[in-house]
């Protein structure tokens, strides 16, 4: 029996989405490396094989290119497959079926055949895993026309967005983060979806807008707590999908706060934070009282050693610092003075 306040972890919320999707729709299937093994996918796939059989839950050879292509081909033939990559790094072998084929198929064939496939990539950072087990490549996929990119930050969203992704007729890149797998909250037991392209305000505030993506939402909320103690009210906006991006929601927040910090767990250059900053400059310039700040990974590969990891991954303190740089009253004047004195030298 369902409990009114049933809590679920992020990973089990994804698992519940799969169970509910697969019991409702026989065309939904899961294929990917390690779907039989918690080593790869945690408990996101638990119980599926026993319940739905080995034709709809397929653990695969290490052949990312063909396995992703097979998912795309199955989608073209009327299935709704989810193809899973336990580390996003491995997805790079599958760029052709994702970018050349899935993303383009509908457009280049004049709208004749949709590609209802979900390409599920797990960001698996930390743990001294180094440069090839840690990458967050969402910006790369968000760059590609024809792909939608979803990045849930909470268990409730993970379930609702996975359901929406599978039900969408387009190729959707669903990206989650292993650092979120243990997060727990009350998750509705019913079958529900959260629309792709609609963000959410996670915390109200009037002094600064923090747009945070995926794992960084948690860091942004921590930062907002800390800032509140300093008397700064931060509004935290979670876009939930990186593409399509709900800039209207960000814009509304900026009209209130006039200051923007973007926190993203990807790299800085040409990243999601850069895109949001550009949109702010393009569409919300008159709202801005201060330059936009980005809190991202530095432009370098992920290191292994724990000391370097600690320096590499941005956390709530970095967001607090970024906000402080914005709200210091003399910030603009100081910057201007700095430029003037520099020019005079």
């Amino acid at each position, binding site marked *: 029996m369902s409990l009114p306040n049933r809590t679920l972890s992020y990973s089990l919320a994804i698992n519940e989405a799969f169970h509910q999707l697969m019991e409702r729709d026989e065309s939904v299937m899961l294929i990917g490396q390690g779907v039989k093994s918690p080593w790869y996918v945690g408990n996101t796939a638990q119980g599926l094989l026993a319940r739905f059989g080995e034709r709809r839950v397929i653990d695969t050879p290490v052949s990312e290119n063909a*396995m992703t292509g*097979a998912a795309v081909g199955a989608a073209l*033939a009327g*299935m709704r*497959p989810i193809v899973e990559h336990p580390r996003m790094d491995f997805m790079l072998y599958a760029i*052709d079926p994702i970018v*050349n084929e899935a993303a383009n198929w509908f457009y280049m064939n004049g709208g*004749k055949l949709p590609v209802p496939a979900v390409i599920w990539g797990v960001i698996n950072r930390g743990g001294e895993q180094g440069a090839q087990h840690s990458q967050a490549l969402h910006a790369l996929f968000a760059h590609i026309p024809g792909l939608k990119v979803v990045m849930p930050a909470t268990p409730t969203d993970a379930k609702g967005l996975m359901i929406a992704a599978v039900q969408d*007729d387009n190729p959707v890149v669903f990206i989650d983060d292993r650092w979120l797998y243990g997060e727990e909250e009350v998750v509705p037991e019913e079958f529900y979806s959260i629309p792709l392209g609609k963000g959410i305000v996670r915390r109200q505030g009037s002094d600064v807008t923090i747009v945070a993506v995926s794992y960084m939402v948690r860091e942004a909320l921590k930062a907002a707590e800390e800032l509140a103690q300093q008397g700064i009210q931060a509004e935290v906006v979670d876009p939930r999908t990186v593409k399509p991006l709900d800039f209207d929601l960000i814009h509304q927040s900026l009209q209130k706060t006039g200051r923007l910090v973007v926190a993203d767990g990807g790299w800085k250059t040409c990243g999601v934070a850069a895109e949001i900053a550009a949109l702010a400059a393009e569409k919300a310039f008159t709202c801005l009282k201060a330059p936009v700040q980005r809190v991202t990974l530095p432009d370098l590969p992920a290191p292994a050693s724990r000391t370097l990891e600690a320096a590499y991954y941005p956390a709530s303190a970095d967001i607090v610092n970024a906000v402080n740089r914005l709200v210091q009253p003399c910030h603009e004047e100081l910057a201007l003075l700095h430029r003037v004195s520099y020019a005079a030298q």
Partner: protein
Amino acid sequence: MTYSRKLLQDLYATMLRIRMSEEGFVEPILNREIRCPVHLCSGEEAIAAGVCSVLEKDDYIFGNHRSHGHYLAKGGGLKEMVAEVFCRETGCSRGRGGSMHLIDPSCGMLGSAPIVGGTISLALGAAMAAWVRGTRQVAVSFFGDGATGEGTLAESLNFAALKKLPIVFVCENNLYSTHLCIDEIRVSRNIYKMALPFGEKGHRIDGNDVLKVYEHAKQAVELCRNGEGPVFLECLTYRQRGHVGPDDNVQGTHTDIRPAAEVKRWLKKDPIKRLEKYLLQQGGFTAEELQKVQAAISREVSEAFDFARQSPFPAKEDLSSYVFA
């Protein structure tokens, strides 16, 4: 082996339809009426015609950059294909794809793409879909000898064999990977042997003999339908035209470096002439009957070209249609 009159006439008509439309493209390409890259399949018609003649409407095929023949043989609309090559709104891909992106889902032609090897795994997936659903559908992947250099082929062969998927891998070996002779890209010319280590049945056949193609394809598809797939068919053939366009040499780039004697030798093995000879000598057809078929197809092709030329180009306002479903 005896063949029904209907089958023979259908094979002949399909091959002629492909040849006549391919040859119809030559002039408009040379005078720039057609601008998109066009990879003509003149000389390779027997493979598409033979393989698709044993498929049902709801079986799936995927093609590559040289797929006019695959599309037509599977039942794709001729007018819509010609209009697509002319990049018109009435084309099968509404002018968004051009010659390299032909599709007709209503007859199981799920698409073609010029990323070499890129559609092999898509066909694998279509076969997987049939396997998951437990239908008797079969998928066919058409690709060339050049695609044997792609890792995705090996990955797909392995997975297909592992799950006994209903897929026929059809390698159209025309001996050239764009400009490069097969001996410069592979240590062995025996492409079909690639399938053997995976435990798959593999055969090499004369791809210019449509009846041989038909027989092998029939057997292959039957095996697939009975859960005894996959099957690999290497079909030896030769393209009579350039890699892209009518003839690289005629077009002035002089990049077709195939020896003249070799080209001449293969022209003598023209698959349509061979079938005509069979039809007249053993098939019980008269010259008059063949001429009647030719005249009908010629009319059909000419109407398709008129249709394409009279069709509008896509409107600028529709640039952003069809990005998302």
